[in-house]
């Protein structure tokens, strides 16, 4: 009889505190016994790991268990037994499951002795130039896809005019109400402040030349030509574009888009047309409203800071800009509306299907909307310069 004993961690408290989980192997070569004692609770964090070479000396044997000294256990003990099961499997040792109490046996039998390797995502590192190329191609493709979507939407709009459309009027009305009247307050506040800020900046400088009255021209031209259209578009990109993208990507997650496709209801006329159309309808009105409110902001500041009469400010404003500049701003607001509507719908349609993807889509719609609006505005500025508007 050669009694060989191998003791498991934690070895510090061999005697005394007998509640710590302990194990040791005892018995002969051919019939080793795993003796377990103590309290095995996963929450305590002191569950020992069975060493990978723990059964080296006992190969070719039949391992049985002695668990009578275990005072309490939960899945922590099963974690240890699973270690043992895997090591035993690798070493070709069979476990005598009958010597385990029923509950431990049932749980341990659920666990595989040779688990499959976890599936990993292979991260392939692309060369730098290739990355640039991929992104460029993707960007160009995206422009194409958005244009195609725009073309489909226009086609849907034409069909609507011809009375063969499948757009529901109620969708257009709710979208328009949301993009129009409900946005008045925020558009008003922002444009009022922009007008006031322009007047402040202008007043300080122009006063030096006793040209205070030109504050009215400054505010008028700036609002009509640039600020009202751009600021309103930025607000709408954040407010409405983000909402459209979030709504459509949530529909994507709920398989609502799939249901539309199966019925053959084109997303372009059912979903995109009302949103784009509602923005095209409301943006010019919001632009006009923004111009007026902005001039009002400038007026308030100019009247209180400078020695100008209300009638004088009004007269100077009216003569400051021609109809050409007005048409310029008006056109921009139409283009911005169509751009925000189309891109946010496209981003929503392209989004993934999880909650995180909805957040990503909303963020992207806002970022693309704002950056895009400013970029388009720059293009317009160049065109205007060439045409001499």
């Amino acid at each position, binding site marked *: 009889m050669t009694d060989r004993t191998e003791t498991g961690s934690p070895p510090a408290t061999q005697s005394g505190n007998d509640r710590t989980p302990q194990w040791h192997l005892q018995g002969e070569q051919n019939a080793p016994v795993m003796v377990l004692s103590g309290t095995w609770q*996963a*929450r305590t*964090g002191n*569950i020992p*790991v069975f060493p990978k070479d723990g059964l080296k000396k006992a190969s070719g044997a039949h391992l049985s268990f002695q668990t009578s000294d275990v005072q309490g256990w*939960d*899945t*922590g003990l*099963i*974690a240890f037994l*699973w270690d043992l099961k895997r090591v035993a499997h690798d070493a070709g040792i069979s476990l005598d499951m009958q010597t385990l109490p*029923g*509950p*431990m046996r*049932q*749980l341990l*039998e*659920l*666990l*595989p002795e040779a*688990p*499959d*390797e*976890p*599936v*990993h*995502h292979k991260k392939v590192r692309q060369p730098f130039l290739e990355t640039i190329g991929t992104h460029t191609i993707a960007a160009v493709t995206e422009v194409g896809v958005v244009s195609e979507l725009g073309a489909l939407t226009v086609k849907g709009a034409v069909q609507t005019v011809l009375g063969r459309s499948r757009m529901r009027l109620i969708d257009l009305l709710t979208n328009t109400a949301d993009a129009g009247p409900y946005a008045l307050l925020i558009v008003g506040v922002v444009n009022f402040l922009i007008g006031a800020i322009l007047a402040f900046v202008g007043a300080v400088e122009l006063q030096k030349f006793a040209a205070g009255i030109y504050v009215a021209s400054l505010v008028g031209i700036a609002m009509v030509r640039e600020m009202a259209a751009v600021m309103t578009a930025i607000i709408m990109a954040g407010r409405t574009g983000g909402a459209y993208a979030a709504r459509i990507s949530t529909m994507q997650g709920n398989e609502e888009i799939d249901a539309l496709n199966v019925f053959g209801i084109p997303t372009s006329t059912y979903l995109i047309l009302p949103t784009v159309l509602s923005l095209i309808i409301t943006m010019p009105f919001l632009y006009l409203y923004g111009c007026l409110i902005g001039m009002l902001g400038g007026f308030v500041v100019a009247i209180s800071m400078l020695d100008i009469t209300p009638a004088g400010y009004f007269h100077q404003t009216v003569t400051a800009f021609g109809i050409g500049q007005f048409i310029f701003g008006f056109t921009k607001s139409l283009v911005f509306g169509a751009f925000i509507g189309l891109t946010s719908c496209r981003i929503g349609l392209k989004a*993934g*299907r*999880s*909650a*995180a*993807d909805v957040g990503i889509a909303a963020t992207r719609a806002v970022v693309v909307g704002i950056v895009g609006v400013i970029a388009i505005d720059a293009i317009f500025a160049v065109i205007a310069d060439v045409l001499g508007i």
Partner: protein
Amino acid sequence: MPDQTVLSLRDITLSFGPKVIQKNISLDVHKGSIFAVMGGSGCGKSTLLKSMIGLLRPSAGEYHVGDENYWAGNEAHRTDLNHRFGVLFQSGALWSSMTIGENIALPLQMFTDLKPDVIRRLVELKLGFVGMLQAIDLYPSEISGGMRKRAGLARALALDPDILFFDEPSAGLDPITSARLDDLILNLRDGLGATIIIVSHELSSLFHIADDGIFLDAKTKTPIARGSPRDLRDHCTDPQVHAFMHRERDEEGNT
């Protein structure tokens, strides 16, 4: 101690505003039993489950978890009691921004002081129980509905709860997967000594695993029968319960 009551409801009324969903629900769930909440669609099964896991306060009645009055204390008290619960939601309800492994690790990170490697080991164990170890680093969107449900079960087991709630565990699963899930539930009950409350109308699985239960009626808005699904099938005289248990149409022709 046999026949120890783990959960008890006394004259619970559930309502959304003025609309009463179910009233006069009284039941006792014994330790180690698998308790089925049965009834037709829209009878308030899931609402009852919601109130049992603390998502909906009943408008009347008392609910005891062990010796504690569940709704009497404050939020923190309820959170403590909830740590005895593991809930498997109908479609898994995995957090989509995290991998399966992170989903199961989150409760352990939040409520224990365990080290990351210890947590990883426990996460692997819980996934091993449900046979999902290979999916530990995948995101919920990358796995099938059945796997999501099993991963949800692994997450429900994260904190070693002694009371498990399953909302329609076999809905949307094929018969083989669903039978395997039934066996898994039985194994977990026997292995962990847990008590299980299960909301389902999957008859074959109810007959197989449940040993106690309650039948809710949508029309009268009260429970109309009590007992294990097998007993109700064989002995209950109520025509509606009989029809439900035997998959017949009732007198009025509704299913």
